């Protein structure tokens, strides 16, 4: 069992997302610790990219704030290493293919192993292009996490069969961002996933309220929340961690009795 699966061993998982360095790495560290203390099961850490084509305005702005603050891949590696002194929950990087490609896949993924990053999520690396990084991921024991979208249809089984870590089920069409309503027939998608793999499956995109998290985790193995947390960072800046702690608690509480 990979470390990531451990995140799903105790009921439904709550997975918060943070853009590293938004507004600075100290605040990201305090935010991650607040989330873990309040029940986060797995942490998704975004390495900012200049042109994040899968993100809505909220996370685009976070990427920009982080990059303008001078964050780099190397600084993020040092930050994760420091974080790992006390944070033991699984952690994955979410970034774009060019960030890894440019750094060198070998150098990037061997560092991931060294600092105990358990997986990577790349929204611009579909299943067909997995060979770009998969062999190196395998070499260093880092899970390459695949995404499934509302449009995946006859691709779901193919992707699910090779899933590792967890499957990231995109709830809706479009980019990241909070939504008042999620209308995709996710139950049908999850059912196809279940027929093809034992790997857990968490739903993300558009989730912001405890009710939505409860509904989404009820259909799957967990809920991923990005933009709602990033909004707290945009609003409160360095003071955000305590609001994030309260927010994560409310979200995790909503998942507890499922």
């Amino acid at each position, binding site marked *: 069992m990979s470390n990531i699966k451990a995140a799903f061993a105790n009921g439904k998982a709550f997975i918060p997302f943070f853009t590293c360095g938004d507004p600075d790495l100290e605040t990201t560290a305090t935010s991650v610790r607040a989330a873990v203390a309040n029940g986060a099961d797995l942490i998704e850490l975004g390495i900012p*990219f*200049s*042109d994040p*084509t*899968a993100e*809505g*305005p909220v996370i*685009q702005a976070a990427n920009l704030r982080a*990059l303008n603050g001078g964050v*780099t*891949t*190397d600084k993020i590696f040092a930050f994760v290493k420091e974080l790992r002194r006390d944070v033991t929950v699984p952690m994955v990087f979410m970034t*774009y*293919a*060019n*960030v*890894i*490609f*440019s*750094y060198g896949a070998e150098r990037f993924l061997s560092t991931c192993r060294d600092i105990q990053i358990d997986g990577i999520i790349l*929204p*611009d*690396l*579909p*299943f*067909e*292009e997995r060979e*770009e990084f998969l062999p190196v991921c395998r070499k260093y024991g880092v899970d390459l996490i*695949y*995404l*499934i*979208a*509302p*449009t*995946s*249809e006859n*691709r779901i089984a193919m*992707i699910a069969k090779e899933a590792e870590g967890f499957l990231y089920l*995109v709830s809706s*069409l*479009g*980019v990241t961002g909070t939504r008042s309503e999620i209308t995709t027939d996710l139950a049908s998608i999850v059912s196809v996933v279940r027929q093809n793999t034992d790997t857990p499956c968490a739903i993300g995109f558009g989730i912001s309220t405890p009710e939505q998290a409860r509904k989404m985790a009820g259909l799957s193995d967990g809920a991923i929340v990005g933009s709602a947390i990033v909004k707290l960072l945009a609003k409160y800046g360095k003071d955000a961690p305590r609001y994030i702690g309260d927010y994560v608690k409310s979200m995790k509480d909503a998942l507890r009795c499922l």
Partner: protein
Amino acid sequence: MTNRNGRFGVHGGQYIPETLMSAVIELEEAYNHFRDDPAFQQELSELLCEYAGRPSRLYYAKKMTLDLGGAKLYLKREDLNHTGSHKINNVLGQALLAKKMGKTRLIAETGAGQHGVATATAAALLGMECVVFMGEEDTVRQALNVYRMRLLGTKVIPVKSGTATLKDAVSEAMREWTSRISDTHYCLGSVMGPHPFPTIVRDFQAVISREIKTQILEKEGRLPDAVIACVGGGSNAIGSFYHFISDQNVRLIGCEAAGRGIETFETAATISTGRLGIFHGMKSYFCQDEYGQIAPVYSISAGLDYPGVGPEHAYLHDIGRAEYVPITDEEAVCAFEYLAKTEGIIPAIESAHAIAYAAKLAPSMHKDQIIVVTISGRGDKDCAAIARYRGEDIHE
């Protein structure tokens, strides 16, 4: 030249969100079907001739040839096409394909506005809804084209993210496509993005080199010694090169926008200054920093102001089949003025980059040698900006 996974050597591929995979697969299947459908080809051919005004002229630039005192210069007049540039070749093909696929809505990105205007035109003609994404800075630089698109019934959305130029318009169009796929075709304007776009756009633009070949054989009884075109994403260049790729004696030269110079950060010369990367759906060369962050590029030309280059150009560069040279703003502006005064032709500032290199190359060649330069578009849209570059305060 494309293999099954849309690769040109190591370049190309499909680096896009899972949400878009079904759409590009559907597009590839439809394209493979209609490409070999005589009825589709007939319909497209009629549109290109009767509506867009093809074939475009191959004009012998006698005064320029005499003035430069070297190789004979021919100009491939894509500027004379309907809507004023080569963009219409690709757009009519893609719009017709989208219509056959049952799509009712076109979205597009635009830099200088030429592709946006062409897409808006095709949408009006074929009765489709159209939305064009344009960097906010470009909507100011190319205000006339914004008005043209609106006049044609298209909604123009100014993109404020990033550097508010072409790359951001592409990103925003891709984002829009992920949110609405079933009725919408993304009419990509250059030989870039995920497979099958680089192949589809190249095939629709290849009409340029097909015509050049026929026309030059008629006029000169031989092939040219060099074909020169400007390169942003590279659609007019690949269109101008394509049917000459196997003719090893024809030099293929792409002119990149060097902006204020390739030794400065204010440049958009991807092959001269970029390195291999993955962005906007493709592996190719990109201007980027040491951590893979895409660089905020610069050129006076909105149409060449892009940090990447199409994957087939990257491949032609790798194998040494095509040469890519940087041309600065100043060189391009001088060529813009030179062609106007010498031949009475005002080229697009993008195309002026190709003229600038032709003017450098021609004097070093023999009088019996031939250069073909593609004038990818006309320069009306650029007059105000060039006047401002020269210190005259003109506003449209």
